């Protein structure tokens, strides 16, 4: 199949790789793409069309059309004509039932049936309503582009990067290179991006021009232009932002000047059978011959409106293709054109004259590729003389170079569209929209191009209108008996071509955070999981209950470094906190701790934590782990508004924290702490400074998990040292590390809330059952008015503890049901060994919130009984905390 070695071919015949297609091995040369290697192996059918499952072959060979999409190594919708194979690459056909050559769904092409009429989505699967689920099943199978394999575990990591360029040139063809060179010579910093492996554009497929292009590229690089290959511009956004897809990186370029040197898009001609395999665009045929030394066909007919077709005919002849006829529309526009063939084109009949052929090259007038310019709101106008749309007014900071400007060389005649009659004339290759569909759409009243587009779905497929927008406008103009200028264009929006979700979901600005003791957790066998941006231990063994037991019976240690930690300092510090919290802090004694929730002016809880007074003018505030940044910003914001005499510092990362808890916690503290830890000297809710294992520390005596506990705050760099010391000295009491899961069980036994888990965007402190932390006698605080209104209207719901006598476990989020209707929800639930029951918290209607009241919750599909418990399940009096 290969031609003898040709000058300038892109393949290296001394190197081969082997991949598989549908399980069969295929050999390729270095420089081949999957598509070219399959073509070399004799394959002509590369895909099945979206709706009618018509056979489709290579059309553009430049990654622009939908025809050659296959599933490569489990990733669907890969254009194989531009994807090089690697050793062992697994390639599969898609959108077929059966095989590419015998696709069972192809009956839809012949029998018509429900798929045929335009707007079938809107018309067909409407009634009866009960059948919708079946319709959906059927449609999902029949339609769609490829399948995502949920078992493909290849995890592509995408990074997002920012870059700046004085001039960003998009497109590395001749005019792009020349523009880049000119800007670089004028002393500007220039980056040029190109989709292919090397710049040169379509001239790389032109044997006479290829060396000129290569030396131009070398000269441009020498002038200091940074040339990025395999880089695809996704769009042009405001402020000249151009996100560039580089495979595993999304580079967001911000440029002072963007030069669109995006060239033209070759356009198909519209005639019956124009989508048969073997009907190609000029570049497709040329690339086969010149890049990969393949003969695109034995005998060809060329249909052209410009010089491209004529040149292509010459090049094909040089590759040994017999040219049966060149039909030059500039001399005479034929009245009818019909291509025939089954597996591929076999003949072309022009005005009744039949040519046998296995290749038809069609060259409609090339359309300037103005997509990027249109994103930037350049004005685009129809040029009736040439039958193309050209950009006419550019926004500031945006330039256009070369053919994209409409400077497309020799004048062409506007191509006609040859309508139906003998088979389907495809307007939109992606969505299988025919000239007849447009006729029907217009007849049904969808006569504006915007409506016709949505109704027929033309231009809405993977090529994003590249190959069909112009023809769609043309056909619409014909059907509505107006002209293309009146019809106008559809709105071009980014992205210019399909973008994988994975690329956009690249890693966020904040990287994963680990505490200073992270490696110790790993060494001790912790299972680590994400909580917000933190990586934290879930538990250290397969049995979180064992860790709970250790805390209740002896001694547990948990890393709580993720807590937000803020310092509030200054003469106004107390007054400042009084204004931010419903609770009061100005009267807190130095060395004491008080709990507080934060509310916004809607009276809704958004965070909670403890506040310790370190000095008259200094407070140490902890927040939830996920709330640290938000609370700090909130404090800073109000400080910017109020201008009080306070200073704020976020010391979250600088300070590590460990909670030492359990009946033996004091014994351990006696060993490692250099102060008095007797219950008199260091009482519950006291805050003391001192040293732990020689490290300066602030100790808060609090009890989130319900046992005697000390929270040690100390400089992060000493994390591992302190952690090790606690386990060394705690060995006697079998000190046990515990993770987040056991902590959740422990705190639930105390019905201590987790903000965001047991509260939501509607929760206020009164209905969250915390009236004691609201001091409505204060003059003002953020949220006061709204909470007062809640109090005046009366409580409607309440957050309560509950147990499930049946022992069955509802899911978190399960409905609380009253009279068959949802009336609340379960916010937390766990099995507690200590209590011997399934326990939880739920938001219930106020009249069901009394101690011992029974209410219904949904477990699985059924209703079960839960009983309200208003007291903590464990140590209700708090005796252990105070012991």
């Amino acid at each position, binding site marked *: 199949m290969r031609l003898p070695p040709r000058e300038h071919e892109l393949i290296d015949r001394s190197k081969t790789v082997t991949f598989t297609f549908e399980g069969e091995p295929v050999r390729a040369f270095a420089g081949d793409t999957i598509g070219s290697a399959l073509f070399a192996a004799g394959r002509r059918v590369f895909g099945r069309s979206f709706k009618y499952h018509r056979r489709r072959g290579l059309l553009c060979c430049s990654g622009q059309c939908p025809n050659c999409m296959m599933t490569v190594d489990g990733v669907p919708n890969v254009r194989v004509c531009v994807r090089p194979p690697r050793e062992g690459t697994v390639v599969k056909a898609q959108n077929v039932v059966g095989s590419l050559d015998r696709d069972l769904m192809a009956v839809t092409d012949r029998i018509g049936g429900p798929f045929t009429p335009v707007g079938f989505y809107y018309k067909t699967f409407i009634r009866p309503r009960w059948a919708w689920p079946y319709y959906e099943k059927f449609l999902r199978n029949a339609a769609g582009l490829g399948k995502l394999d949920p078992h493909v575990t290849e995890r592509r990591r995408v990074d997002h990067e920012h870059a700046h360029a004085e001039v960003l040139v998009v497109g590395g063809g001749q005019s792009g290179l020349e523009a880049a060179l000119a800007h670089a010579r004028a002393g500007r910093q220039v980056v040029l991006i190109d989709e292919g492996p090397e710049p040169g554009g379509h001239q790389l497929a032109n044997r006479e021009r290829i060396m000129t292009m290569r030396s131009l590229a070398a000269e441009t690089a020498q002038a200091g232009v940074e040339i990025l290959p395999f880089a695809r511009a996704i769009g042009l*956004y405001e402020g000249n932002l151009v996100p560039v897809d580089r495979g595993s990186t999304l580079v967001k370029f*911000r440029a002072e000047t963007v030069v669109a040197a995006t060239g033209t898009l070759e356009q198909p001609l519209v005639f019956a059978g124009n989508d048969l395999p073997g009907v190609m665009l000029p570049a497709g045929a040329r690339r086969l011959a010149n890049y990969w030394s393949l003969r695109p066909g034995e005998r060809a007919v060329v249909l052209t409106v410009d010089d491209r077709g004529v040149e292509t005919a010459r090049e094909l002849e040089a590759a040994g293709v017999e040219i049966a006829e060149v039909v030059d529309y500039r001399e005479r526009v034929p009245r009818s054109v019909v291509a025939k063939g089954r597996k591929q084109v076999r003949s072309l009949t022009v005005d009744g004259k039949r040519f046998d052929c296995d290749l038809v090259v069609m060259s409609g007038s090339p359309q300037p590729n103005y997509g990027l310019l249109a994103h930037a709101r350049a004005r685009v106008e129809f040029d009736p003389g040439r039958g193309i749309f050209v950009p006419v007014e550019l926004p500031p900071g945006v330039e256009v170079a070369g053919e994209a400007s409409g400077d497309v060389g020799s004048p062409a005649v506007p191509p006609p569209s040859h309508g139906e009659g003998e088979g389907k004339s495809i307007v939109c290759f992606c969505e299988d929209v025919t000239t007849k569909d447009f006729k029907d759409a217009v007849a049904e009243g969808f006569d504006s191009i915007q409506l016709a587009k949505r109704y027929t779905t033309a231009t809405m497929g993977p090529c994003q209108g590249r190959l069909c927008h112009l023809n769609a406008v043309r056909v619409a103009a014909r059907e509505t008996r107006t002209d293309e200028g009146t019809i106008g264009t559809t709105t071009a929006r980014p992205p210019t071509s399909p973008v994988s979700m994975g690329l956009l979901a690249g890693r966020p600005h904040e990287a994963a955070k680990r505490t200073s003791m992270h490696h110790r957790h790993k060494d001790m066998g912790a299972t680590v999981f994400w909580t917000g941006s933190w990586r934290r231990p879930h538990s250290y063994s397969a049995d979180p209950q064992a860790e709970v037991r250790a805390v209740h019976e002896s001694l547990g240690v948990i890393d709580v470094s993720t807590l937000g930690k803020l310092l509030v300092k200054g003469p106004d510090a107390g007054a400042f906190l009084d204004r931010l919290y419903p609770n009061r802090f100005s009267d807190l004694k130095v060395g004491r701790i008080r709990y507080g929730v934060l509310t916004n*002016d809607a009276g809704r809880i958004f965070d909670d934590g403890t506040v310790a007074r370190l000095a008259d003018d200094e407070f140490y505030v902890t927040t939830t782990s996920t709330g640290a940044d938000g609370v700090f910003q909130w404090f800073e914001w109000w400080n910017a508004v109020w201008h009080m005499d306070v200073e704020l510092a976020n010391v979250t990362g600088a300070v590590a924290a460990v909670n030492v808890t359990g009946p033996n916690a004091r014994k351990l503290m006696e060993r490692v702490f250099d102060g008095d830890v007797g219950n008199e000297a260091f009482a519950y809710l006291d805050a003391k400074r001192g040293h732990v294992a020689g490290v300066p520390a602030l100790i808060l005596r609090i009890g989130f998990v319900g046992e005697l506990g000390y929270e040690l705050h100390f400089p992060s760099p000493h994390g591992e040292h302190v952690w090790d010391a606690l386990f060394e000295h705690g060995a006697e009491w079998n000190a046990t590390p515990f993770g987040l899961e056991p902590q959740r069980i422990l705190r639930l036994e105390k019905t201590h809330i987790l903000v965001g888990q047991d509260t939501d965007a509607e929760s206020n402190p009164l209905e969250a059952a915390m009236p004691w932390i609201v001091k409505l006698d204060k003059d003002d605080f953020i949220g006061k008015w709204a909470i007062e209104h809640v109090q005046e209207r009366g409580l409607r719901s309440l957050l309560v503890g509950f147990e499930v006598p049946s022992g069955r476990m509802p899911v978190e989020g399960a409905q609380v049901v009253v009279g068959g209707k949802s009336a609340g929800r379960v916010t937390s639930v766990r099995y507690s060994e200590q209590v011997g029951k399934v326990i939880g918290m739920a938001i219930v209607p106020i009249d069901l919130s009394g101690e011992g009241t029974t209410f219904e919750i949904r477990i699985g599909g059924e209703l079960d009984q839960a009983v309200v418990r208003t007291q903590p399940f464990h140590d209700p009096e708090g005796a252990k905390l105070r012991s």
Partner: protein
Amino acid sequence: MSFLLTCPHCGPREVEEFRCAGEVTTRPTERPGLRELNEYVFFKNNVAGVHREWWYHRHGCGTWFLAERDTTTNRVVRTELPA
């Protein structure tokens, strides 16, 4: 949104470095009625044109500042520290 914003402290930066906290509102000085409260908390003017809004230099110096921005074009008229 994609434009440059000038932090009064750090100078022009990518807008992604900042957090926008919405239009400047005035907190009532006296306890409002339920209606006024809801208006203050939930209703924004949502101007099509130039308005004043809060910004926070999140991935930078951590300054809260005010910007006058045209919401229809994203042209930033000016930025300043709160008085």
